[in-house]
């Protein structure tokens, strides 16, 4: 318990520091940070439209952040969520436009299943390359994001084009109902929440989840007790891919009603950001995703109300993540203590003396 409390404090302190740095930026341009942050909150949560936009922004972010986090639980750094969202989206659009022969409920199902299948297949490639050939999944997924983007772009400017000036597909035959018009919030948010709860249950309550966590923390142990680290790693990436696919499907069926080129821009990146801030902790990641969605949704209102550019919000989130990756906010005091102790008594740990850590401390 004390560990999770510590983690909570660390996030809190990091957040305060990041907002503080943001406040300095705002002061530097001659504005009032409190007013700015206030306008932001009001914009995101104070009006129906604002709240709707927050929810609309939260929906894909919730899924992509969990997609990244679940991959991380299995030991993968999956930058490829964005590509999975794109391909999930285009698949949903294809099925949604062309499979009108299916009865409506089945068509919904087909859109989601198709999106999940294609996105999972896409995630399968870096997963296999990593598991069997030890190729960096970071590099492969970054590259494949661009490939996915071009595939989507080609399809909606060519074979699937609606013939409009902007590259986009024909409208899909089934859509998810909007819940807070005129915002983009739609029933997809409920699907996303259910899916995320299911994923958290999978990770912490099922055998598969146990295996994922085992492989992610100690693959040698996993193999030794009879859990194939390679297969579980790949299955984790498939799960992550499916979540990206669902996000893409919801965006297409819920927000746009068609596939719009480049619609997934930054969805994967921001999801990754949310997960990274809490080191891919499954239960806190959704809250960070919500927090980021609030920041994003409120930023426009802040800009209009106070002359503070909305990009301050992205700046603050980026600072948030940079500080959160470092291991010093909470451990500062313990580190000082350790250094003091080390100064009095020579360090004794052979592992720290033997590795690179020692080399530069002179």
């Amino acid at each position, binding site marked *: 318990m004390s560990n999770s409390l510590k983690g909570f404090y660390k996030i809190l302190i990091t957040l305060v520091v990041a907002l503080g740095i943001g406040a300095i930026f705002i002061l530097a341009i001659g504005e009032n940070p409190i007013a700015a942050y206030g306008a932001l909150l009001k914009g995101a949560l104070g009006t129906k439209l604002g709240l709707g936009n927050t929810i609309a922004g939260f929906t894909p972010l919730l899924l992509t952040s969990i997609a990244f986090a679940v991959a991380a639980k299995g030991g993968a750094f999956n930058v490829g969520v964005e590509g999975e969202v794109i391909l999930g989206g285009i698949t949903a659009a294809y099925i949604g436009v062309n499979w009108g022969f299916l009865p409506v409920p089945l068509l919904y199902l087909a859109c989601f299943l198709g999106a999940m299948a294609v996105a999972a297949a896409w995630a399968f490639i870096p997963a296999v390359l990593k598991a069997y050939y030890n190729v960096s999944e970071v590099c492969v997924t970054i590259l494949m994001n661009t490939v996915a983007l071009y595939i989507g772009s080609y399809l909606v400017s060519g074979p699937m084009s609606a013939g409009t000036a902007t590259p986009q597909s024909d409208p899909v035959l089934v859509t998810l109902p909007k819940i807070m018009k005129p915002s983009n919030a739609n029933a997809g948010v409920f699907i996303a929440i259910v899916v995320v709860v299911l994923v958290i249950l999978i990770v912490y309550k099922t055998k598969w989840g146990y295996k994922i966590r085992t492989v992610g923390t100690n693959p040698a142990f996993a193999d030794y007790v009879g859990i194939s680290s390679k297969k579980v790693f790949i299955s984790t990436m498939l799960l992550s891919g499916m979540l990206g696919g669902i996000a893409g499907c919801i965006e297409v069926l819920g927000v746009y009603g068609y596939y719009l080129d480049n619609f997934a821009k930054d969805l994967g990146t921001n999801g990754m950001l949310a997960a990274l801030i809490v080191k891919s902790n499954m239960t806190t990641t959704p809250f960070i995703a919500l927090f980021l969605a609030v920041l994003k949704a409120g930023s426009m209102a802040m800009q209009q109300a106070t002359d503070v550019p909305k990009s301050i919000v992205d700046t603050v989130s980026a600072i948030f993540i*940079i500080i959160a990756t*470092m291991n010093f906010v909470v451990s500062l005091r313990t580190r000082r203590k350790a250094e003091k102790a080390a100064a009095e008594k020579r360090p004794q740990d052979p592992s720290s003396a033997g590795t690179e850590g020692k080399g530069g401390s002179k």
Partner: protein
Amino acid sequence: MEVFESLGKIFNVSLIYATFRASTPIIYAALCAAITQQANILNIGTEGIMLVGAFTAVAVSYFTGSWILGVAAAMGGGAVIAMIMAVGHIKYDSEICAIGMGINLFAIAITKFLMQVLFNTNGTFSDPAIVPIPTVHLPFLEHIPVLNELLNDWCFTEWFVIIFIIILQFLFYKTVWGLRLRAVGQFPMAAQTAGINVNAVKYQAMLISGLIGGLAGAHLSLGYSTQFVENMTNNRGFMGVAAMYFGGANPVLTAVGCLLFGFSDSVGARLQAYGFPAQFVLMTPYLVTVIVLAVSMAIKLGAVKKKQSSLVTG
């Protein structure tokens, strides 16, 4: 016959320069990633370093009217960003991918923010007051048909990149520092027992990487174009990282990898004009890189397996 005519228009002499021109920013980015890779640090933050460099270059050039100051400031800005990463990674144990991604997001956001604050504009900032990096006009080439088209009026930093590749090749493989850098990257314990300060070398590599990344950005915003556009690096940093993988962090081979990107970029742009789906051409370098990565790793694993086999006597 129309096809051949079109092909002739696509694959002509000017394509060579177009390829090189499109490759240059990526080459700088790849060299930025190569130097840290030699110290075994995967510089995912190349994209962000470059973007900050691009913005700083434009801003300083605009305010001072000097492209030299612009470039210098860009390199300084890149170095600052790189040092944030270095301290986070080396001193505070940040996972390099995580902090690198953070840096990239920070770069996009802070440049957007500063563009709004300093220039009160969104999206694109271009202004006649921005002094670009000059082009090098060689009068004696004017009357030589092919060479004139090929070599004349290159931007200064385009010429410089060639020299720079050679400098880095020299630095890595001929100098004391390069030798130590490679030793630190491949086997830090060995370097340490040889009396080398491993972390100091890593910091130095990150610092130089930041300077190069800043230069990459400056070339992009003051040489390749004369403006700053939101997120104008547009994955060039990542392409650089991929090319660095392709070339195994060897500057010359890395640059060759970059030419592959530049080539498909230029051909793609031309093909698009003829109705060919440019996306396929544009995605080729990415696909090729993935395949090259996979094949080279498979070969490496095969060699290890053979070496460890009990059936052969070693």
